[in-house]
């Protein structure tokens, strides 16, 4: 579904991504894990058309998309929920959702029924409908951002740190929602620092380090990989010492 080949990208003279390649098949949950500054967000922005690439190609549903403007990429169903800057603070919650469906040109009734679906998934957004999105809490913002992305009918949803800054209860809920979205047919690319939960729900995963993919494999497989344990699952590693 998504095939990325040998991407080079960076800021000015500083190269961030070095010949990065990965692919995602339809229906999968794939996670991308790596430390801060590994280039995960840059990679997502290259895919979304926000960041120019210096070399390589991005194919989505067998079409090259690396030269397309961001709105056309969204129109094809490749939608990102970014880590920062994810909502429109001065617009109301309802308007934020509506903007997620901007390209679909729905009539009033169709738009209403799409919004209903989002409300069913995140009831809190119904109560907050007329409030400015900037007044929402961190967890509510994350739900709004996800809701807005779903309004665009994504085929492949790219989530950048969806659990960041959320209370543990809500994190579990968020991962549950991601799994059920996947069960309903949305392919998912998950970028996470919360490696354990991410790997648990993923079919496959990639590990990124300073702009390079250094490891790849099935989610559960990577969980038992010594290298991954050392780098990302700190607490587990302690078990080894105690043994």
């Amino acid at each position: 579904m998504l095939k990325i080949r040998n991407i080079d990208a960076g800021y000015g003279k500083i190269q961030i991504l070095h010949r990065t390649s990965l692919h995602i098949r339809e229906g999968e949950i794939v996670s991308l894990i790596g430390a801060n500054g590994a280039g995960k967000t840059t990679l997502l922005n290259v895919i979304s058309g926000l960041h120019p690439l210096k070399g390589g190609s991005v194919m989505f549903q067998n079409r090259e998309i690396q030269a397309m403007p961001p709105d056309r990429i969204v129109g094809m169903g490749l939608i990102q929920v970014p880590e920062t800057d994810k909502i429109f603070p001065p617009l109301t919650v309802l308007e934020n959702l509506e903007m997620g469906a901007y390209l679909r040109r729905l009539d009033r009734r169709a738009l209403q029924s799409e919004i209903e679906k989002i409300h069913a998934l995140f009831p809190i957004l119904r109560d907050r409908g007329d409030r400015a999105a900037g007044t929402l809490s961190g967890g509510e913002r994350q739900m709004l951002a996800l809701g807005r992305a779903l309004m665009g009918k994504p085929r492949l949803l790219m989530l950048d740190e969806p659990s960041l800054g959320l209370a543990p209860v809500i994190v579990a809920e968020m991962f549950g929602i991601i799994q059920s979205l996947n069960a309903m047919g949305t392919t998912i690319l998950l970028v996470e620092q919360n490696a354990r939960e991410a790997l648990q729900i993923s079919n496959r995963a990639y590990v990124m380090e300073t702009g390079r993919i250094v490891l790849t494999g099935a989610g559960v497989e990577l969980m038992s990989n010594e290298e991954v344990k050392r780098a990302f699952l700190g607490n587990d590693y302690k078990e080894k010492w105690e043994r």
Partner: protein
Amino acid sequence: MPQLVKLFQFTLSGLTTGSTYALIAIGFSIIHNATGIVNFAQGEFVMLGGMFMITFYGYLKLPMAAAFVLSVFAVAIIGLLLEKTALRPSRSQEVLNLVMITVGASIFIKGLSMAVWGKSAMTLAPFSGEDPILILGAAIMPQSIWIFGITLAVVAALSAFFVKTRTGKAMRAVAASRRSAMLAGIPVNRMIALSFFLSGALGAVAGIILTPVTTISYDAGIMLGLKGFSAAILGGYGSMIGAVAGGLLLGVLESLGAGLVSSEYKDVLAFLILLIVLFFKPGGIFGKGASRRV
């Protein structure tokens, strides 16, 4: 009570010019919100509006309504062209460079207008007669009523556009966060082009309704642009209510200053107010506070 009547008279005429400042200020705000730049060609849009109206209505004798619509449309297209041919292709998208391009465009438009319409000031007959109407002892010209009415209609229509329509909401979304708008699938470049189109139209309306009161010449744009800019700063740059309040307030203060002190200092007063605002409340009346972390 003649003193009080005089004050009332000054206030009324201040509100008249203030309305047009408000329209110019909204034009500044719309472009600023979409792009982050100050468009120094905004005043030229006003001048062009007056010039086109004189051409279509005064010379070509088109019906007034048709000439009005045609003039507004013509300047809106010029706004669009400014964005598409001068700003968009610029290799640097740095704010300061883009602002300098608008300064250049302003000089270019002014020069071209001098070649087309000549150097002398031109005027337009008021839309409906010149018999003043007396209200509470103060005289109000029918053109002033046109100016209020049209400004009110334009502001109401714009407010509805930004709150009710899909495109209007998308423009607000772009103003809130350009990056977020791109990720929502909003064609940001089209929204920016639209903001120039709208600002051109707004400037043109201001020029058309103002011309019968003040006359217009090829070099009138700079002063009108600066007045609108001051009004926008006074009200809070980027805010629509702020632009309207700032425009009206600036118009009234200017008129009171001219009437009670001396008309020599009319323009000085506007910039004095601008400086005072920048010194003491840089966010303007409706601004979001002075500090912004960068």
